[in-house]
Every structure is written in C-alpha cells, then in structure tokens.
C-alpha cells in the first residue's frame, strides 16, 4: 500500500509539472485550432466525403502531436529530475527506483489522457456539427446522409491513449538507459517510426513462401517492436455504419497493454542499474 501511495504522489507531482509545461499548452492549442479549422481546409479535399477528410485530419493531428508530446515530455521530465539532482534527493528517501519510474510514467500518461480527451471532444463537436449541416443537403440530393458514431470516437480515444501510453513507456525505457536527453528523443521518435511500420513484419509472417531467416527476423521484430498501426481504426469506428470487426478494439487494447507492461518492466530493469 505504501508503495502505491508513493507512486501516486510522484505521479501527481509529475502530472502537475507536465500540465504546466509550455510544450503541452502549445501542442494542445495548436491541435485544437487545427481540428476546428479542418473544415476550412475543405478546398483541399478531392476524392473523399467531407466528414472523412475532417476526421482523418483530426486523427492525424492527434497522433502526430500526441506522439511528439509523449516522447519529448517523458524524456524531459525524467532528465529534468536527473540533471537537477532532485532524483537523488527523492531516491535517498524510502522510494524505490521502480516506484519513481512508474510514478513518472503514470503522471505523463495522465497528461496524455487529458490531451486526448480534450482534442477528441473538439473533434466530436466539429464532426457532429458538420454531420447535422450536411444531412439535409444529402437527403435533398437523394443520398444517404453521413453519420458520426460518438461511441466509436470514445473507443478510438481509448485506443489512442493506449498507443501514446506505449510510446511513453518505450521512451522511458530508452531514456532509462540513455545518457542524454537528445538521444532519448531521437531514439524515441525512431521507435515511433518503427512501431508505425511494424505491420510490414507482421504481414511478412502471414506469407507462406518466406525463408527461415526472414521469418525469424520478422518474428523477432514483431515481439520487440509494438504495432502502433493497429490502433489506427478511426475511420471504421467513427464513420462507417458497419463499424470495426467485433473484438478488434479489445484485442488491440490487450496486445497494447502487454507491450506497455513489458516496456515498463524493461525500463525498471535498466534504471535499477543506472548510475545517477
């Protein structure tokens, strides 16, 4: 119980620190402004429905800014403690290194949750308003009026929270072993890139005519790198009447939570050996 209480306190302080960061406010305001103004970018839209364009724009902003926030904020909050020597003071008290690291992660994850909830609420407002405006026009033209699934958007937000949680845990693992803040950020962004392209290895595994060496490499890649693309089912969840296949979101959440836990364990193992 004491360990939980200590972790909670560290998480709370980390959350307050993170919320006060200018990067968080800047990315949140920029993301909100872009999500609201996405309707004004319709002139760039050629081949798709308007709502699909707006939704895709919002999902893109959520992922790009969210990833940037997850990587930079995680590394920055850890290195700030290490560089200012406050970590030394804290760890001199009866606080284990794992509790310290877990507290940092939970604080960052909570901030990422706030970021996602705010941006998704704005996106939901924009989509529902536009859907209500478009519906009479579509009906008059004899077309099926577009619909927005608010529950689907809530599930999508949950998936994005998991995705950003994995990115934060992965960055924490890299930062726990790295020497500099810059290296952690660059390696974190490269890990995000790898995670977004991991599906290529996963697709390779399903092909029957792949050699042993390639298969082994793909198997290793799919275990070591999380598949971040599997959380990208916003279109199906929010805009399509059929929705996503049953259980798709739940299985993605399960796989994501296992990867998140694995990276947290790895971060703790590395941080335990680190010289502060």
């Amino acid at each position, binding site marked *: 119980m004491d360990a939980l209480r200590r972790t909670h306190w560290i998480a709370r302080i980390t959350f307050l620190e993170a919320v006060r960061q200018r990067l968080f406010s800047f990315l949140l305001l920029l993301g909100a402004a872009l999500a609201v103004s996405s309707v004004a*970018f319709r002139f*760039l*839209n*050629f*081949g*798709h429905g308007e709502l*699909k*364009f707006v939704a*895709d*724009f919002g*999902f*893109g*902003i*959520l*992922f*790009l800014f969210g990833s940037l926030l997850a990587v930079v904020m995680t590394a920055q909050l850890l290195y700030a403690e290490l560089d200012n020597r406050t970590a030394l003071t804290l760890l001199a008290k009866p606080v284990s290194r794992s509790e310290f690291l877990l507290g940092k992660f939970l604080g960052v994850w909570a901030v990422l949750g706030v970021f996602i909830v705010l941006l998704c609420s704005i996106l939901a407002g924009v989509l529902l308003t536009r859907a209500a405006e478009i519906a009479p026009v579509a009906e008059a033209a004899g077309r099926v009026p577009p619909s927005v699934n608010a529950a689907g958007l809530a599930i999508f937000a949950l998936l994005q929270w998991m995705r950003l949680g994995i990115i934060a845990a992965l960055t924490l693992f890299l930062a726990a072993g790295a020497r500099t803040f810059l290296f952690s950020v660059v390696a974190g962004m490269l890990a*995000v*890139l790898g995670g*977004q*392209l991991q*599906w*290529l290895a*996963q*697709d390779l*595994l*399903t092909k029957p005519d792949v050699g042993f060496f390639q298969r082994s490499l793909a*198997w290793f890649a*799919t*275990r*070591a790198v*999380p*598949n971040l*693309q*599997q959380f*990208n*089912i*916003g*279109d*199906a969840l929010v805009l399509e009447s059929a929705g*996503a*296949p049953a*259980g*798709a979101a739940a*299985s*993605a959440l*399960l*796989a994501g939570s*296992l*990867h998140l*836990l*694995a990276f947290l*364990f*790895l971060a*703790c*193992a590395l941080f*335990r*050996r680190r010289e502060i």
Partner: protein
Amino acid sequence: MSAWATWTASAALLIAAGSASDRSWAAVRPCIPELGARQLELSAGQGVLLGVLGGLRTLVADVSWLRSYVLWERKEEAGCEALMRLACTLDPHARYFWEQTGFAVGLDMANWEIRRRGGYARVSKEVQDHVFAAYARKGIAVLEEGARTSRNRAPFLIVAGQLAEMKVRDQRMAATYYRAAAESEDAPWYAARFAARTAWEAGDRAQAYAWYRDHWSSVLRVRHEDRAPDDLAELRMMEDALGVPAMRRIPRQPWER
C-alpha cells in the same frame, strides 16, 4: 523483484504481446486501407511516409493529387502517373482518384505520347491506334485495381469498358467489362444494354441475346419499378434480327405496347 526476474518477466511479456498483436492485427487489418511494402518502396520519397505514419492519409493524398495537376499541365508522364497512383494508394476507397487516374493514363497520356512523336499530322493512323490501345490497356489496369479496392465497382468497370471499346477497339473485351458492371450491385441502368450491344456488335449475337434475356428476366424486371421497358424493346429487336420463333420469344407482357 530481482533484476533477473525483471528481465525474464519483460521477455515473457514481449513474447505474449507479440502473439496477442498477431491476433489483433489479423482482426484489425481489414479496416486499414491496403498498403504493401511495394507501394511504400515506390513512393517513399513523395510524402507517403507522412501519410502512413501520421494518419493524415487523406490530406497527403489530396496534396499529392494537387502536385500531379502541376505535372499534368507540364505533360510529365512519369511524375504525373506516380503522384496520381500515390493518391490512389493513400486513399484507396476514393472513387474520384481511381477514375481520374484511369482516364489520365488511358486517354491524356496517349495524346501526350502522340504529340511527343511529332503530333497527329505526322504520326500515322496505325501508330496512333497502337499508342491509344497501349495506353488504354494501362488505364484499364488502373481501373481494375480501383474496382478491387474501392467500394464502388460498377463505375470503374463502365469506364474500363469505354476505354476497351473506343481506344483498344476490342468489342468483346468491352462487353466483358460492361457485363461485369451490369452484374455488380451498384450497376447503373444502362450497363446491361451496353453489354448486350457490344457483344452483339462483336458478332456474338446469340450469346448476347441469351445473356440479356436472362438478365432482364432475373434482374432488370425485378429491380426497376417500370420493369425496364426500353430493355425489353431492345430484346424484341434482337429476337426479330435473330429470327427467334414466336414460341421461344419472351412472353408478351401485359403492360407492353
């Protein structure tokens, strides 16, 4: 927890996460537009990575389409086709991209090639026909890909049929596409007539009549409120031309004039 136990638990969790990820990816894959390693290789330098990575697929597809316009005006065939195909790859459900790419490759680029060879006055009619047919086949290949990936099948098959009819000048090939369009769920009312007419003109008169008759009885008459009287009129002309005996003709309909 000892360091050894932590490392072991991490490895076990990673293996479990990988296995769970395999299963969840199999469930999620149909929701994500098809994009393979080949397309990534072909267009990695043109912004596709941003589209794939960032989720801004539609925006990158639109920007790519805009850039293709610039190259279209300059008549730069390779670059224009690459950018148009990139837009199709990034947003494979968009009918507009596939249809316009099919037209651009099948029609516009053939014109550019003839102009490049000296223009219509200098290039012989045989060479012009050859160029048009070659580009039309490329355009048809694009449209076939679009029909596979987009949600609307019929419009692509109709355009493919038009290219086959007018540029490849292969009536049988055109009839095949029109027939496929007529038999798809989103078939326009004229697709069956096109299919029957082109097959008829290709010389397959008996087959054209048999298919059209069967299609009218089982689909057109049921699907259309007015029971497709124009198609029946067309069928009557075919029966006359083929000399179908009165007993084997389509029975006279009560509403028929």
